[in-house]
Every structure is written in C-alpha cells, then in structure tokens.
C-alpha cells in the first residue's frame, strides 16, 4: 500500500466526480474547453460527442448518449474498468490477481474500430 499513490488517486477520483456533477448541472457550457482538435482542424476526434453523451447519460437519456459517440460510450467504461484494476494494483504495490485484458486479437479489433470510427465519422 502506497499512501502517496492512494492520495493522488483519491484526488483524481474526487476531481472526476466533481466534473461529472458540474457537467450534469451545467451541461459543460462555459467552463469546459471543448475539443482542441476540433477547434483547430474543424474535424471530429474519436472522443468528440463524449461530453454531450455523458450529459445525456447523467440525465438518463441512454439512447441519446449512444447516438453522440457510440464507440466512446462502449470503450470508455471498458477502459475505465481495465485501468481501475491496474490503478488499484499500483496503489497497493501488487497487481490484483485478475485483469481486464482483451488479448492480442481484442486489442487489434479495438484499434481497427477506433481508426475506422475516427475516419468514418469525418467522411460520412
């Protein structure tokens, strides 16, 4: 157990929770910077729509959430769980006996989906 790591992780989780609360109340308008890639290039990045999607989700509109960014809505929670397991292992100084690992084919599928999604949403 590393106390310093536990403090950092707690702060990060509190920050995320606060941001989620603020997003739920304000819709992110006025205080969130928005997507830098989109501002610079005018194109959507793979994560564009996640703010709107999360806002919709926090208001119980699941269908809308998936419409804004279906790929992100599936992958982000998965990645958060996978990362969470690793972070818990990192905090306690010893890996947990299990992990969320998509394997080499899974990882390749995720990569392809991500690229196709990114290119596709800007072309179609």
């Amino acid at each position, binding site marked *: 157990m590393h106390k310093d790591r536990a403090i950092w992780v707690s702060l990060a989780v509190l920050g995320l929770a606060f941001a989620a609360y603020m997003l739920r109340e304000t819709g992110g308008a006025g205080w969130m*910077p928005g*997507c*830098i*890639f*989109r501002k610079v290039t005018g194109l959507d*990045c*793979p*994560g*564009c729509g*996640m703010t709107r999607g999360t806002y919709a989700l926090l208001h119980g509109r699941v269908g809308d959430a998936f419409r804004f960014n279906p790929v*992100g809505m599936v*992958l*982000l929670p*998965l*990645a*958060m769980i*996978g*990362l969470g397991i*690793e972070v818990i292992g990192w905090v306690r100084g010893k890996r947990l006996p299990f*992990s*969320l*690992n*998509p*394997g*080499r084919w899974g*990882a*390749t599928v*995720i*990569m392809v989906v*991500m*690229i196709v999604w*990114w290119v596709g949403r800007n072309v179609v």
Partner: protein
Amino acid sequence: MSWYYSKNGTQLGPVTEQELKAKGGSGEVLATDLVWKEGMPDWLPFGQLAEFQALGVVPQVPASGAMGSVPMPQSAAYPAGYTQQIPNYLWQSIVVTILCCMPFGVVAIVYAAKVDSLAAHGDIAGANAASKSAKTWVTVAVGCWLAALAIYAVFAIIAIAGSSIH
C-alpha cells in the same frame, strides 16, 4: 531496469533492481530461482548473477545439483504467461484518446495493440519497444492536453479580467 523472476514455474514481475535485491535479502527469491531482464540472452539462476553476488544478498549457487528442481526455460523463449507481463497501455491509450481529445492517443492505441501480438510471436524486444512507444504517446497526449488546458485557462482569466475592467 525491470527484472522478472520465476517461482515454481510462475512468471512474476516486473520489479526494480532494488526490489529484487530486497526479495533476495528476505529469501523470497532464492539463489536457484531464475531471473531475467531485457538484454539478457537467457534466464539465469539469481545466485549466478555477479551484480547480486557482490552485494552479498544472495548465497552462492553450488556448481551442480541444486538447480535440478528448477524448470529451465528454453533459450530466450519465455515461460507461459510472460506476454501478460509487458504492459500494453491499451486502456490508458483509449482513455487519453477519448478524454483528452488527442489524436496522439490513436498512435498510442496502434502501438498498444502491437505489444501482445509481437510478444505472442516471440518478438519480446519488439513488444517491449512497442510498449515503450505506447507509453511515450500516452504521455505526449496527456502533456499536450495539459498544455492546451493551461493556455485555455490563461485566456479565460484574461477574458474575465478584461470584462471586469470595462
């Protein structure tokens, strides 16, 4: 430099050199247990490594006999489960791609996806290199994002300050 060690046929690690020394000192890693780090052509019994012998944390290995019970991995091939040990940074890459809004994250994902494939084909050096690249691009994406946030914050403060003057 990360070390890997083997206990009862199970692959463990990575650990730092300091941690490995501590494990040697406490008896958790025995002189007969096999250890390996990147750059070593083969797994070696812990007690045979000069760098640890010099510290006196490891008892010397008898020239013969004691190693009989240890399953020796074949040449530079890796025991089962080894591929799990090279971090692929896949989840980190996905999180930065989606949350930090940084196309660099996609580059990280490409490297992350290569790690396990290369390791599965026995290209451990390539897998380690891909792992390092993935980590680098995750760091670059986070760094760019933080820098952009800082610039955004500065402009926001200037705007607020400017509007309060007028």
